[in-house]
């Protein structure tokens, strides 16, 4: 069953279009920076961009910071929101259940396919950004390849690579919260669009409340609160506090939402 869902994911043109588009914005930013040589001043604009001009090795992290607030969640919400609702809308859900695929198995397979998509998206964005970054900005060979950390002493190239890998893992994990919301809504509605939009509405609401002082008491529990904490991986030494909280918070969201998704889907009348 998992194999079936992966085949569906891979054979669907949309998967590759979304991943392609996901790479477009960071690549455009890199080209603009390289052409104009106008990096934002440190502390303004997207994270890392002020540093990439001197060393392209940091550009994958910058690319993640560029797609993380909107592009990546949008694509994850589209794919996860389509998981069950898309089958319902196409009418294929009733044939899968009558096959019988088993509701829990189907849900697990859908979840695995979404996880693979998230991982694939993050890896492709990072790898593309690495090649684009090093090609356009070089590897900082002038100062021995050292990479400017966000704070503290510079990182060695080896450290930079490791921390980029950790950042990929953290970003992918952060996306699981989005995926869980979208998957849950996907079992509630028969419209994939509604499921994806619903998940995005949650994120927009969360981002909005984060800027509101009056919502201070809620902020530690908002799903997007610790997303950008992956920047802390590029401090020297790493500032773990927000990262750990981010992982804990996402884990709770994912666990609760997946339980709700399972409870809803296994007791639902398939009338689509």
């Amino acid at each position, binding site marked *: 069953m998992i*194999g079936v869902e992966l085949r569906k994911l891979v*054979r669907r043109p949309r998967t590759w279009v979304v991943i392609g588009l996901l790479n477009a914005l960071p690549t455009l930013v890199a080209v603009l920076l390289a052409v104009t040589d106008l990096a934002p001043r440190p502390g303004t604009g997207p994270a890392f961009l002020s540093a990439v001009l001197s060393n392209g090795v940091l550009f994958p992290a910058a690319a993640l910071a560029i797609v993380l607030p909107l592009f990546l969640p949008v694509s994850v919400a589209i794919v996860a929101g389509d998981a069950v609702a898309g089958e319902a809308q196409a009418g*294929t859900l009733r044939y899968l259940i009558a096959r019988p695929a088993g509701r829990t198995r189907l849900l697990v397979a859908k979840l695995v396919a979404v996880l693979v998509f998230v991982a694939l998206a993050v890896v492709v964005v990072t790898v593309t950004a690495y090649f684009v970054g090093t090609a356009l900005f070089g590897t900082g060979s002038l100062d021995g390849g050292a990479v400017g950390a966000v704070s503290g002493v510079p990182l060695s190239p080896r450290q930079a690579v490791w921390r980029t890998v950790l950042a990929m893992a953290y970003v992918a994990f952060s996306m699981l919260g989005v995926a869980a919301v979208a998957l849950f809504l996907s079992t509630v509605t028969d419209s994939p669009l509604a499921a994806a939009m619903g998940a995005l509405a949650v994120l927009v609401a969360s981002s909005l409340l984060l800027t509101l002082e009056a919502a201070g008491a809620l902020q530690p529990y908002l799903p997007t609160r610790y997303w950008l904490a992956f920047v802390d991986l590029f401090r020297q030494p790493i500032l773990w506090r927000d990262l750990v909280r981010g992982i804990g918070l996402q884990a709770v969201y994912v666990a609760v939402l997946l339980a709700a998704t399972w409870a809803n889907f296994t007791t639902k009348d398939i009338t689509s």
Partner: protein
Amino acid sequence: MIRTRGLVKRYGGVTAVAGIDLDVESGDSYGFLGPNGSGKTTTVRMLLGLVLPTAGTVEVLGAPIPKRARQVLHRVGALVESPAAYGHLGARANLSLLDAAGPGGSRRTRRARIDEALEQVGLAEVGRRPVRAYSLGMRQRLGLAAALIRRPELLILDEPTNGLDPRGIQEIRALLLALNAAGTTLFLSSHLLAEVEQLCRRVGVVDRGRLVLQDTLAALRAPTGAVVLRTPDPEWAVGLLDGELAERSGDRLVVRTDDPAALNARLVGQGIRITELAAQRRTLEEVVLDATTTSADRPEAS
């Protein structure tokens, strides 16, 4: 093959199925009839574990549904309401994905089974064209092929000839009759009475969520004890028949008699010419219209 007892489904305050006891035996060809909104589709969905009953039990191939659906449903082929497929993939890719999505479909024989099913429904030459480019009739054939890939013991089909042209209907009918003759049990949900009349030996009629009739087609259409005759001399015949005449429309007379031969001899003896004489049988349409009240898609009538 199919056994339901006291099957009830309520959606909120609406009762879609109000206690249905179905019995479909092995080898049967069973026509499941009823007006729109009578609960046919909901019942079919409960047989397949799609909709969970509010009360009552469903048994398919001897196993309770939905509890043991995984053990038996792979031996059932189904077409529910309309066929569905992934539009960007071709027929073979669609069938292969569906077959791989559950138990009972061996990977080793998959290719051969898919080819055979496509052959059976007349789609053997379909090639790699994506399904979104298919006509309605082709989609219907593909839906049937999906129901046939595991050579099921039981076929649960909802309007199987929907969207097909007359030749296609005839092909599919011949296919279903051949499958039934070879031992496949057919459960056909339809409101096309002509189709059921040609395919089924037993029928069940639902109305407003209840099974109002379940019998063999032969019994339902047994002679009514009257004779229908046509004559070019109706006036004369009417005068002669007097009290026996049940109904007259033009040159067509319905006459109550227990002895058609004697009636014929009597009329002919009087010089009345008879062009047609046959025992009166109710059509399935009359049976169903008698048994059911009104279409649920006419709300003002209830």
